[in-house]
C-alpha cells in the first residue's frame, strides 16, 4: 500500500456520515495533496459511485475499497480515510465501514489494480493491523502503520 497511498491525502477522521460524503472527502483530500484538476473531481466521484451501484466495495470487516479508473493519472494512486463512528455502506457482511482505501488507477493497467487490491486485502486480513488502524488518530500514525506493520505486503504476486 505504501507504493500507492498518497501520504498527504490520508484522512484520519472523515467528517462524512454517508457513503457519497466519504468518497467526496477522500477525492477532495487527494486534490488538496496535488492530484487531479478541480474540474475532474465530480467526474471521479461519479465514477466511484457508479462502481458502487454494480456491487458494494464494502468487502466486510469494516473495510471498503472504493475505486475508479481515470485517464488523468499515469499510475495507480490512492489514500486511506478512517471513520470512528462508521459509515453505512451496504457491505457484504452488513457492518459499517471504518477504514476506506480509495484507489484511482489508469484505465489500461489491470495488473497494477489487481496488485493494489491484493495488497489491501492482504494487509487488512490481519486483525492486529485493523485494530491499530481503527485506533489511529493522526495521519502520521496511519502512515507509520502502513509502512511498518507489513513491510513485504506490496510485493507483486501472491505469497
Amino acid at each position: 500500500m505504501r507504493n500507492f497511498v498518497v501520504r498527504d491525502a490520508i484522512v484520519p477522521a472523515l467528517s462524512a456520515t454517508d457513503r457519497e460524503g466519504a468518497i467526496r472527502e477522500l477525492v477532495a483530500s487527494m486534490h488538496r495533496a496535488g492530484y487531479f484538476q478541480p474540474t475532474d473531481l465530480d467526474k471521479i466521484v461519479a465514477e466511484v459511485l457508479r462502481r458502487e451501484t454494480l456491487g458494494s466495495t464494502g468487502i466486510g470487516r469494516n473495510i471498503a475499497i472504493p475505486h475508479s479508473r481515470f485517464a488523468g493519472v499515469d499510475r495507480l494512486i490512492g489514500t486511506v480515510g478512517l471513520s470512528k463512528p462508521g459509515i453505512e455502506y451496504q457491505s457484504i457482511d452488513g457492518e459499517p465501514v471504518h477504514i476506506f482505501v480509495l484507489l484511482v488507477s489508469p484505465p489500461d493497467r489491470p495488473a497494477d489494480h489487481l496488485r493494489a487490491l491484493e495488497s489491501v486485502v492482504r494487509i487488512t486480513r490481519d486483525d492486529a493491523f485493523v485494530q491499530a488502524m481503527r485506533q489511529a488518530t493522526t495521519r502520521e500514525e496511519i502512515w507509520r502503520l502502513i509502512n511498518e506493520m507489513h513491510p513485504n505486503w506490496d510485493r507483486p504476486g501472491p505469497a
Partner: protein
Amino acid sequence: MSSSTIRTAVEIRNPRGLHLRFAADFAAKARAFACRVYVEKDGQRVDGKSLWDLILLGAAPGCEVTIEVDGADAMSALPVLIEQINSIEVYDTEPEPGSAVPPPV
C-alpha cells in the same frame, strides 16, 4: 481425493483479471452450492467461496487457474463456475435506468 472431486483448468479471459466485482460474482455463485469449491493458481489454493481469498490469488488476465469442486452437487456446480470464470464482463456500462441496485455479495 474423493470420487466426487473434479478439477478443471481455465484461463482467465477477463481483461481485468480476477478483479473485485468478478471475484464477488464468482464467490456468490460458488456459495450457492453445497460442495467445496477451491481455486488454485501457481500452487496457491484458496476457498472459492471467499471473496477475500480470491482477491489474494492476484489472478491477472491470461493466467491459468484450476477450479476444484468436491461434494454432492459438484457436477452441477462446475459448469456454472466455469461459465462465471470465463466471464469477460468489465462492468463499464451504466446500469439500466430504473433498475434495482444489485445487492452486495
